[in-house]
């Protein structure tokens, strides 16, 4: 096993991608993601890979399309405004059934927004990462270790289901350093061959075509329905979530990514006070972990969603439990990171059967980041 090292989330993710067999990276710098691209620019030439800073995010995602069509493991990374620019290319990749890993180190939006941590791109990532009937698989790491660990899984699932996969991080996870044990490099000879790839065949097999254009509506519909079957399978077998303190939980707090770190502090304090609070942390956002949410709803009295947004994932909790229980919301947005003490208050209010949906004006004294 490799030793524990101290790394920024952005760097750990980049190194783990290389170890997962990614030898091609196309990107464009943007805060708070830049260390990821910078790391790739240093390492890729040394391992015989490609690092290319494109002229724009639109160019970068289309280079990813091309590399993926040629059958290699390829990645791009950006932050919120840059990810919006990539949306068209992602939709084309969905329509062409091309795998790739796309990183969004989220910052505040809309528009240029700000550069501080945010989770305001949840809807974009899980609902419409481009036009058309499509999805991407979305992972939400919560530690630097997970930034590293989820990358290989993202590449594997992308290849298995022939779909783009997004890792939805944020500025806090990208910029912070924590100890991390980097994953062992994958043995690339064990990866399944991509028989669909347009990688040259010298007349030895029928020609492969990769395209998202179907002018015949019947054909287009059947391609979408075929993909939909894969989505149903993904929703059935690929849900991931972490549960804590769920045995006697009356209120279940749901949070992902960096927000789950704040919630963990708050839930630990609540438990020290003897409060019956449980904690569910979705690791996949699409597929949303409906199975654990529904199981929790059988015993709990209420849910509380905590996000760095004005409330987006809260919709998925409500859908999962068909609104059979109250689902409260507490959040901050625009780059403001909630204080664990504020979350603790929201937990207590939920325990006393209050229902609320709240984004308070910033009251606290001070804070870092």
């Amino acid at each position: 096993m490799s030793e524990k090292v101290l790394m920024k989330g952005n760097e750990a993710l980049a190194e783990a991608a290389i170890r997962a067999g990614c030898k091609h990276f196309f990107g464009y710098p943007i805060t708070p993601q830049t260390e990821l691209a910078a790391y790739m620019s240093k390492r890729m030439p040394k391992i015989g890979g490609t690092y290319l800073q494109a002229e724009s995010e639109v160019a970068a995602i289309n280079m990813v399309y091309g590399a993926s069509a040629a059958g290699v493991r390829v990645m791009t990374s950006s932050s919120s405004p840059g990810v919006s620019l990539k949306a068209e290319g992602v939709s084309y990749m969905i329509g062409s059934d091309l795998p790739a890993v796309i990183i969004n180190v989220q910052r505040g939006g809309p528009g240029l927004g700000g550069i501080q941590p945010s989770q305001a791109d949840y809807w974009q990532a899980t609902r419409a990462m481009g036009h058309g009937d499509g999805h991407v698989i979305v992972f939400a790491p919560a530690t630097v270790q997970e930034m590293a660990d989820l990358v290989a899984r993202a590449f594997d699932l992308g290849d298995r289901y022939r779909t783009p996969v997004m890792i939805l991080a944020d500025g806090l996870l990208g910029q912070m350093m924590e100890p991390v044990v980097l994953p062992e490099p994958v043995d690339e000879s064990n990866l399944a061959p991509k028989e669909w790839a347009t990688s040259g065949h010298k007349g030895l097999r029928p020609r492969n075509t990769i395209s998202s254009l179907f002018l015949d509506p019947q054909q287009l519909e059947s391609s979408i329905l075929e993909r939909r079957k894969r989505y149903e399978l993904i929703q059935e077998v690929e849900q991931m979530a972490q549960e804590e303190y769920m045995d006697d939980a009356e209120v279940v707090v749901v949070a992902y990514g960096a927000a789950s770190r704040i919630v963990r502090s708050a839930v630990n304090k609540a438990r020290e006070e003897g409060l019956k609070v449980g904690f569910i942390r979705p690791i996949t956002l699409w597929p949303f972990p409906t199975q654990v949410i529904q199981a929790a709803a059988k015993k709990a009295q209420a849910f509380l969603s905590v996000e760095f947004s004005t409330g987006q994932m809260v919709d998925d909790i409500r859908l999962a439990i068909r609104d059979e229980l109250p689902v409260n919301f507490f959040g901050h947005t625009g780059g403001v990171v909630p204080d664990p003490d504020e979350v603790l208050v929201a937990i207590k209010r939920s325990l006393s059967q209050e229902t609320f949906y709240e984004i308070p004006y910033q009251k606290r004294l001070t804070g870092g980041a």
Partner: protein
Amino acid sequence: MANLEIMLAGFGGQGILFSGKLVAYSGLFDGRELSWLPSYGPEMRGGTANCSVCLSDEAIGSPLVINPDILVAMNMPSFDKFVEAVKPNGIIIVDSSIADACCMRKDVSFYRIPATQLAEENGLKGLANVIMVGKLLQLTEFSTLDSLDKAIEKSVSAKRAEMVGFNKKALRVGYEYVDQKECE
């Protein structure tokens, strides 16, 4: 050693993030859980650059320090910004050659060390930040000289290897410094 939430703050360019990195690395060598979170963005040019470091024996929840146990302030704006946020019974250390601060709070321990001046007197120009870490170690024993020496070896870039010795010396200057009198 208890769990610690530390806020280090100063001007961009004073090596605040580096100081935080030394504290973080010492945690790695001591086998503890830790997190290091910098402020980033336009704040780093002028104004205050700051850095949150958490050391704990359990998994770290929020890496963002809002109410620190310890504030290390290397300029006046940082002291002013964070002094009220420090937890009761917390510790505040200021570089008194830059920030001529007096602390009105009676519920915290307040220490002044002329780190920038000490750095110059000892031929360690630019290493006031490491002197501050030495003082922090002296006051709290959050780690050991040995772990911090290793942290210095890890954190100083290979291209500037000659700086390792100076950093270790600066650490000791701070570690051995006897307090300046409280301000009147």
